[in-house]
């Protein structure tokens, strides 16, 4: 079980994490953050394998992943 | 100066550290030689071989040399005041003309002596004396070890042997008789170490007038030679205040 935390206020909604997630669980939210972007988010956290490809490709260092549930 | 001239061969190669007084000595030597030479029908030529430092070189005294009947061997007028590594034409020929007394005023330090390397073969084949002018009040020749290093460095780069030292201890306008004697001792000690003779002690003419008796006694068998300054303006020669 992994917990993926998005630093939503820094996200610029570029969507690279959405593309590179092998489980296709990351989406861009319907709402916008303070900067006016639709931030990335995960609805079904149980499917995350903790591969961190999303974080590896995130150009805005928005994503942190911790093992073992909510941090 | 006549005694100095007598101790030197037909071709005189003048080396030394930067600012040792090589060029002033060369000019004084040439002017003294010229006075004798007129009687003997000899030609005196002074070649400026200083390709390292483009200031205070013998080439700045061309008019004086010509007036004294000395042939200045300097680069052509267009490049005379450049910092291009050029020396005057005709040195090769003059090295082998028996009726010409040639003085080669070489650049400072071993760097300046490098220019001699290209002529060393021809100089070796001519009757020559290579001297090193030493001022022990210059930073890199201020002790026996430093003078030795300088001599060996110059010999290595020039690929020629130094035959004699010229002692030129002075502090410019601040020179005192004591400073001359103290410096001269260092030069003599260095000469002993290098197994070379000291063939002259140079002293500015206006100072020599004041201290002649003391200095001649002190110098013993080494001739004390009055020197006139030609390359530095008079207002720079005033005592520092």
């Amino acid at each position: 079980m992994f917990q993926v935390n998005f630093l939503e206020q820094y996200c610029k909604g570029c969507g690279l994490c959405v593309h590179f997630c092998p489980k296709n669980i990351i989406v861009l939210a319907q709402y916008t953050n303070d900067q006016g972007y639709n931030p990335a988010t995960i609805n079904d956290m149980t499917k995350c394998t903790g591969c961190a490809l999303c974080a590896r490709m995130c150009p805005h260092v928005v994503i942190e992943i911790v093992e073992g549930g909510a941090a | 100066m006549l005694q100095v001239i007598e101790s030197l061969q037909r071709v005189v190669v003048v080396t030394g550290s930067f600012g040792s007084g090589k060029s002033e000595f060369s000019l004084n030597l040439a002017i003294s030689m010229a006075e004798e030479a007129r009687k003997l029908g000899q030609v005196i030529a002074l070649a400026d071989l200083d390709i390292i430092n483009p200031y205070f070189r013998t080439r700045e005294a061309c008019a004086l040399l010509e007036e004294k009947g000395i042939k200045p061997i300097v680069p052509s007028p267009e490049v005379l005041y450049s910092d291009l590594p050029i020396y005057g034409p005709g040195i090769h020929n003059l090295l082998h003309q028996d009726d010409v007394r040639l003085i080669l005023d070489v650049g400072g330090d071993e760097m300046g002596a490098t220019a001699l390397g290209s002529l060393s073969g021809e100089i070796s084949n001519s009757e020559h004396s290579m001297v090193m002018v030493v001022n022990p009040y210059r930073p890199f020749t201020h002790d026996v070890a430093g003078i030795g290093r300088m001599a060996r460095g110059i010999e290595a780069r020039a690929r020629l042997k130094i035959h004699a030292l010229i002692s030129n201890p002075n502090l410019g306008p601040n020179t005192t008789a004591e400073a001359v004697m103290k410096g001269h001792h260092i030069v003599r000690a260095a000469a002993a170490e290098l197994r070379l003779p000291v063939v002259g002690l140079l002293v500015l003419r206006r100072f020599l007038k004041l201290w002649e008796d003391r200095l001649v006694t002190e110098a013993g068998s080494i001739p004390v030679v009055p020197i006139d300054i030609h390359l530095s303006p008079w207002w720079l020669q005033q005592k520092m205040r």
Partner: protein
Amino acid sequence: MAKKGYMRPPTLLQKPWHFCPGCNHGIAHRLVAEVIDEMGLQNQTVGVGSVGCGVFSYEYFNFDGIGPSHGRSPAVATGVKRVLPDRLVFTYQGDGDLAAIGTTEMVHCAVRGENITIIFINNTLYGMTGGQMAPTTLMGQVTTTSPRGRGREQGLPFRVCEMLATAEGAAYVARVALFNPAQVNRAKKAIRRAFETQMAGLGFSMVEMLSACPTNWGLSPLEALKYVEEKMVPTYPLGEFKVPEGVK
């Protein structure tokens, strides 16, 4: 850190980037920070920025930083390194800064074998000033100053790694790209090797990163990554051009 998972490197200050969405500068910054943290060098590092989109690098890193003038970073880094030979000193420069105005400084830094690292972000144009042609612009690429596409009359792409690898003073020279996670991992390894080269005192090192500029290329962030892979890599082949014995 857990075997899986990912945490923000502590050497990266917690603040929003000025970079555009999808800009690869952010990935490059993060990789540099991760390597410095993994090597435990945060307190021993002096970063030298540049002028270009990377101009604020010193604002984002949590270590000592210098903002020099355009193109002169390798000279500034030389001054720092000569005074502080045991520090990790690196420059972070774009292709305009490094490969145009700073060519002399970069070349002679390598020729001297200056023991510093250059992190070189190649995105084929001047990002900061609005997307003008750079020496690294691809043939046919349209920029604001090559409006009909770069042709012969605008010169040909400049391959910096290949040139610097010929310098005897250059110890480690590599070109990497950031267009997918595998490439990003390789890029990180290259930075690590470059920094190890420097800390071992082996000489000059450089890592060139082919980097996407979605805004000035007029592509989506994802299309821009594809552009790097399909258009840039053929002109700028990836690989290690020089690796010293000590870090193999």
